[in-house]
């Protein structure tokens, strides 16, 4: 049951990543830019891979936070991601106002989805 929930969250995170305008625009514009020699095929491929990875990871972390505020350690355990990787993406989401630090617990910060 736990594994099924985790798998569903992964699929939802990937769907959210591709629904997000950042990835949609990049995919939509990328081919045109390559055709017009604004971007090399290799640079475009690297960019798409990096962006998919970032957007998927961040949406997967957001799925965990949707269940309630969590520490880096808790998110890392639930997602099986490296702690520093979780932190890196949390800092990015703090920058883009999606996540905030909501408190502290046993020398760790607690992260929550930012409410507007």
């Amino acid at each position, binding site marked *: 049951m736990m594994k099924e929930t985790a798998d569903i969250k992964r699929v939802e995170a990937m769907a959210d990543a591709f629904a997000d305008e950042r990835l949609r625009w*990049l995919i939509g*514009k990328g081919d045109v830019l390559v055709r017009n020699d604004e971007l090399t095929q290799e640079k475009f491929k690297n960019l798409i891979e990096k962006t998919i990875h970032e957007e998927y990871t961040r949406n997967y972390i957001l799925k965990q936070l949707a269940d309630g505020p969590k*520490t880096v350690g808790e998110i890392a355990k639930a997602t099986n991601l490296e*702690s520093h990787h979780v932190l890196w993406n949390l*800092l990015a989401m703090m920058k883009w106002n999606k996540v905030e630090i909501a408190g502290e617990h046993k020398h760790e910060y607690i992260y929550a989805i930012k409410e507007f």
Partner: protein
Amino acid sequence: MTIAGDKVTYDHLLPSETAMVIGGGVAGMQAALDIADQNYRVVLVEKSPSIGGVMAMLDKTFPTLDCSACILTPRLSEVARHPNIELLTYSEVVGVTGKAGDFRVKVLRKARKIDEEKCSGCGDCVPHCPIEVPNEFDQGLGFRKAIYIGFPQNTPLVYTIDSENCIRCGMCEKACVREAVMLDAQDEEVEIPVGAIVVATGYELYDVSKYPRLGYGKYKNVIHALEYERIINAAGPTGGHLMRLSDGKIPRSIGFVQCVGARDLHKGVPNCSRICCMYSIKNAVMAFELAHDHVKDVTLYYADLRAFGKGFEEFKEMAKTRFGVKFIRGRVGEVNENPENRNIRVRVENTESGEFLENEHELVVISPGILPPRTLRALSNQMGLQLDSDGFISVEHASIYPVDTTIPGIYVCGCAESPKDIPDSVAAGSAAAMRASITLAKGGVQ
């Protein structure tokens, strides 16, 4: 004709009434303001998209623990609004000819790709840019888009498109209702006539990864002092929450390692950087200030403590007695990581007691020495300036002409001449401004 319109010329400037300041850090800003306040025109050239220099990156200043941005921001605004100062950011000096009273300076104005007149700094373009890269202003710990300002007080408050990472998707262009985006803009070279020049090109940090034994770049919980400044800064990547980078935990024990890339003949850096002792003591105190419920041990490993300035010795004593910062005399031999908890083990000989120690810290902060910027040699060649053996700009006489370079009409201030703290940089900025205005007043005759 450029995409922005007619080519910008500076023919209206008279060399007898105009000075140029190269570098928009705290020393250069002071020099520009002091010259401009004497009713001369000043062209302030800064290579990055904003003035402010390294001081804009700092959290607090020593020994008063004043908020660095709170002191600097009014200065940024004063420079930007001064009627006698023309600000050329994102620009570099590429050639100088002439003599005191009548120089011609070639400046490369890199294409910001944003119309400075039209951009209001609203930031509506940012969410639409699909490219995310590490922010240099946050020492790579935070993020920015390909269209960006480095920090909230960016002066001028105008966005810049980073040509290296921009893919020209045009999303920012569509988002900008003021039509300020100019993706086809090209770099432009201009020639500016000036009577005197002040060089205030600042410094850069020693690359501490050149000491592999200290683990920087290998262990995530070994960082350098400017990274620490950004981490504890409220406008920084963590929102001012002290944390270590391996797992985001609040460090209970922090070690500061001094004299890395300074006073080391083997690395070709025999000079003392003057500021590292004090900025590290300040950073040690800030750990207790920010996370006093968590931080229980802060240890500073030093070769010699040089607390030479006004109030510095008292500040050091306060760090020791009031905050409990521990000082251990000894240069750190090596560090390695405890694989179980990612803590950092520091090996050092306490040269006062003769003990060999292995202390474990949750975070280690390396204090790099400071060096002249890598571009200073090229600039000095263009201007005919002499450099000292340590790479900083040589002056006519260290005691009686401390801001006069060996070229009449060209002056130097701040860390372009030698490592300095903020008050000394500001004082040197004022001194260079006075020397430059004398040159202007005399029409170049010394």
